[in-house]
């Protein structure tokens, strides 16, 4: 029996060493290479699915030119949360690609570093794009593409661009008057042009032109006035705004010719072209006698991660490589949004006339607020919109939304 035990122990030990040996070999690249004189460092870039595919060849080229390994990883969902969480755990990327309105949250979590661009580089960007990535006086990333809402119309069904929303309602002869996504719980982003035209605002601005979270516009008399006007377009009014038009079906309803007008961004154009619809793009019309309709400007940005392992290389990539027109053009080809780099924009605008029109539609636009407090706005504001569109009392609804938002901001 004793011998039997010994045999067992020997067998276990033997196996252990064999397996540990295998494991050790597998492990060595992870644990040992930092000391081995390999060709160069590694740069990890995270982007969404479409953009990571477009980035891949440029990343490889950058890697080959500099003798470093560049990995582009596609993050298909919840990019911001994934990035912040992974950064904190030390498993995040060196470079992150995402929307500019993340900046406030990324900064408060210490997830991104500012970039220092020389004067000649800052001059090469669209000023609106550069303004969007500026937060608390610092530039927090390199913008590469812009987007904003515009009015896309089917020129067969509506030959002329309406100057006001009232004209649009008048001109619409289709089953649905306007494809502007509302959905069951509203959509603050798509409503904002009309809200601003009717005199409403979300945050006031400080003396330096930054958004001031202490001055909340939702719940103020201006917002009540604005929602009274919006209610006239709702289901109990002219039915231009309906909750049954959702983010999922608004573009499809337009391409199936059930509505002549679509309020959407550059991302809708691919579908519209695919449906062979003759279209034109004009600014989102505002209310008659109201202020101009101001769509939000969104800017796609390359960020340098604070907790990246290779920050110097990340800075090099973001400030000296992303700022080249070739990359901006390639990213435009992956998804047609106007490039933020003026040189790249000029290069593509001749073959794509839509770009100029989208930029024109965003002329009065405002950068999407990047302050972290903006997170408190989306949900209650959208729901207030849905309620008012469905026929609820504007004053009561928007006051309640304002209360919910301000208690969340505190």
């Amino acid at each position, binding site marked *: 029996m004793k011998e039997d035990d010994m045999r067992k122990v020997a067998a276990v030990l033997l196996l252990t060493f064999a397996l540990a040996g295998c494991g050790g070999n597998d492990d060595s690249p992870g644990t040992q290479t930092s000391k081995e004189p390999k060709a160069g460092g590694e740069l990890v870039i995270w982007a969404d699915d479409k953009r990571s595919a477009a980035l891949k060849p440029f990343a490889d080229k950058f890697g080959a030119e500099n003798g470093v390994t560049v990995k582009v990883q596609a993050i298909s969902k919840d990019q911001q949360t994934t990035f912040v969480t992974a950064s904190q755990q030390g498993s995040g990327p060196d470079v992150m690609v995402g929307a500019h309105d993340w900046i406030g949250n990324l900064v*408060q979590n210490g997830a991104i570093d500012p970039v220092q661009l020389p004067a000649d580089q800052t001059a090469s960007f669209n000023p609106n794009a550069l303004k969007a990535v500026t937060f608390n006086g610092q530039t927090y990333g390199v913008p590469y593409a812009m987007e904003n809402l515009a009015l896309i119309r089917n020129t067969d069904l509506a030959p002329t661009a309406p100057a006001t929303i009232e004209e649009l309602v008048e001109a619409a002869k289709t089953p649905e008057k306007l494809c502007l996504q509302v959905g069951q719980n509203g959509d603050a982003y798509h409503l904002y042009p009309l809200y601003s035209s009717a005199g409403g605002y979300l945050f006031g601005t400080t003396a330096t032109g930054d958004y001031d979270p202490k001055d909340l516009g939702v719940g103020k008399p201006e917002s009540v006035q604005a929602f009274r006007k919006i209610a006239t377009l709702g289901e109990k009014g002219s039915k231009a705004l309906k909750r049954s038009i959702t983010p999922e079906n608004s573009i499809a309803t337009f391409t199936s010719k059930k509505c002549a007008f679509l309020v959407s961004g550059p991302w809708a154009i691919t579908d519209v072209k695919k449906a062979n619809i003759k279209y034109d793009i004009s600014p989102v019309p505002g209310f008659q006698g109201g202020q101009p309709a101001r769509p939000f400007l969104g800017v796609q940005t390359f960020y340098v991660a604070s907790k990246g392992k290779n920050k110097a290389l990340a800075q090099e990539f973001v400030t000296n490589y992303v700022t080249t027109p070739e990359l901006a053009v390639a990213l435009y080809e992956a998804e047609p949004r106007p490039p933020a780099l003026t040189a790249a924009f000029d290069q593509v605008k001749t073959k794509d006339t839509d770009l100029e029109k989208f930029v024109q539609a965003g002329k009065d636009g405002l950068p999407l607020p990047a302050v972290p407090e903006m997170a408190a706005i989306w949900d209650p504001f959208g729901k207030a919109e849905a309620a008012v569109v469905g026929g609820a009392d504007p004053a009561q609804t928007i006051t309640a939304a304002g209360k919910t938002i301000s208690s969340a901001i505190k």
Partner: protein
Amino acid sequence: MTATMLGGPATQARPAPPEPTRSIVGLVSKALLLGLTVAIAIWAAFPLIENEQWTGLAVLAATTAALLYLYLTPRHIPLKYLAPGTILLILFQVFPVLYTASTAFTNFGDGHRGSKDEAVVAIQTASVTQVPGSQQYAMTVATTGDPGTGPLVFLVTDPVTRQVSAGDADGLKALDDVTVNAAGRVTAAAGYTVLNAGQASLRSAEITALAVPTPGGAIRSSGLSRAYEGRAGRAYDESCDCVRDTTTGQTWTADENIGAFVGANGERLAQGWKVTVGFSNFTRVLTDSAVAGPFVRTLIWNFGFAIASTGGTFVLGLLLAMALHSPRVRGRTAYRVLLVLPYAMPSFAMLLVWRDMFNTDFGLINNLFGTDVDWFGGSASARLAVILVQLWLGYPYMFLVATGALQAIPRELSEASRIDGASAWGGFRRITLPLLMVALTPLLISSFAFNFNNFNAIYLTTEGAPFPADNPANGATDLLITYTYRIAFGGGGAQYGYAAAISIFIFLIVAVVSAISFRRTRHLEEVHA
């Protein structure tokens, strides 16, 4: 985790002293499993050592040693059976619960994720701005020693004078014997080895950390080919435990109770850190008017939803199972396959499809019936809609388990009752159903607990809609879990600490319900066993 799968070959489990002759297969598989355990332990040890997690390493070593001892000694037979289950329980139940509970006592969330040191670094880094009026330099990273280890030097070229200087932590020193390319970057310098991008990127952290002091601030790298003269606008001062603005002199003092630097006017710096906040998350759940106000209404609907989902699917599944249990039905297999289909589709996608089918103007349901119901617009219709969806998604499961349980009941029992003169209904009610319930009650309880927290069922369909005009935070179809998710993650960014406190309350509710139900089940078993 695989470690826990070594339930031990059956030969080991006999209480009698081990026989001298044992199956060679048993021995080999045991050796394999134990070897695998040790291999996994060694594999898990490397990251622990790397991160200097000595406590974790000690626990790992002790567990592995204990497991080896346990399965190599002929003693402790009962423990051999208990160990795998216990380890699984600790790994997948106890540990997450403890982790959640410990998070509930912190302010962990957006703006409070890391340590105080990390917050200080973030504040200082974010405050470094280019000195007004200064130029950016073309820069080359070089060293006086070996490219991999030698002390780093920035070779910077003044954009105006084209003067090249070498900069390190002591300051700038003019250089003469240098070669400069068209862009102004140094390509060679006497006494220095120029690092190429690959070599430089291997020393990224040192390059980022190097600041060459200048009268106006410090020259820092901006990537590997440019440098700028920057100045930190804010600096941490250990003597006052505060952050000071280097221009205005304004200070923000560290407040360890809330994990943030707070100014004299109450203004907080955005970058905070994680601290223990005691019971404040729990008191907030109990006192927050947004939670407390609609709590009872939400709880009642939550019970209604869980009971209707579980009960509805059970009744439907059982009826179908009984119908197909009768041997008179032809093509039973085909029917069964068809009935199980909804179970085979991903519920994630199906929920989204159902949501679109309930659309007022474009949805299949209104189009099919020629109705104009605003399904998700009214409380009653929205609740009915989500329950209908649950019914469709959930009945195949109940159908499957009921079919299995029915087949396990001997047909003689119902035949005997019929001979004794019982009606079909009486036989079902007095014989089949009680026997079924013994087998199915635990499944019903777990199904109830699952549906009680069925986040996807609501979030992917109504998202809680409809919302009353005066309260955009709580909708008619909101379950506790969707409602509190919105509170914890909707407004002020992600608040994990608060969310953990809420989930503990929900856990308590479900635990109480389950405990009561299990007690009743035991009662059932005693009666019918």
